[in-house]
């Protein structure tokens, strides 16, 4: 039997990620004038891996030894990552305010989208419980 809350839990985790990311991007914007501050971001893959149950692995499945294995050592599994693509200013600060505002907007739209889907999922179950009435 399917677990009625499986999908709801998944949406919840996506919302958690967006919520944490909003905090990190807000912190980047707050520290836009702090000398030596390095812009940070949240790694979606690592966050999902750590919040999902251990049996649900995101690793590639290989059935033959000649299959190319996913190089897991190459993957950055830390939740918090430094954004190295940005250019450093003279005061060693890497915050790019335009990029951070863009991220903030993206993240908030993502959050709205996921919470809307979550509402619809809940309403579906409400319909089921009310026997379609």
């Amino acid at each position, binding site marked *: 039997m399917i677990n009625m809350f499986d999908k709801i839990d998944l949406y919840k985790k996506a919302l958690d990620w967006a919520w944490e990311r909003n905090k990190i991007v807000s912190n980047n914007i707050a520290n836009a004038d702090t000398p030596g501050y390095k812009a940070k971001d949240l790694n979606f893959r690592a966050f999902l891996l750590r919040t999902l149950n251990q049996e649900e692995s995101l690793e590639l499945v290989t059935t033959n030894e000649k299959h190319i294995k996913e190089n897991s050592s190459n993957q950055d599994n830390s939740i918090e990552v430094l954004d190295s693509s940005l250019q450093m200013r003279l005061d060693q600060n890497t915050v790019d305010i335009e990029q951070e505002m863009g991220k903030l907007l993206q993240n908030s739209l993502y*959050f709205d989208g996921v919470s809307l889907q979550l509402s619809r999922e809940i309403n579906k179950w409400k319909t089921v419980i009310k026997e379609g009435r």
Partner: protein
Amino acid sequence: MGMFDAINISSSALAAQRVRMDVIAQNIANANTTRTESGQPYRRKVVVFEERKQSFADILDQKISEVQTPSFGGVRVKAILEDPSPFKRVYDPTHPDADQNGYVNYPNVDIVTEMVNMIEASRSYEANVTALNITKSMISRTFEIGK
């Protein structure tokens, strides 16, 4: 995972930018002050920001929660320092604070620099207000889940 963490982060930045604005206003106000309490001309003040470290409660929360997420505290004013650059020397023998050669030391305040810094501070303030509003809309969105 505190509900108002992001709001606290943005508001710490608003407070820090306000302090910066206050110091800039002080610099502009004293751009021609040749005599302060110490007897010297006014020295330009500079605000130094620092990333605010998380409190003990934050670290404890983080260790208790099952998912190890980074925790942030925003920004704070580390110090208000004096600009050590030399004073502006102006030849004005009629000035009461002139030395024996007729030169007066004026504060090392450059009005143009202060105005530019002021614009920068107000833009940073605006960016943080936007971040605050986005966090607000995200919180009110969570209240509507299931409606």
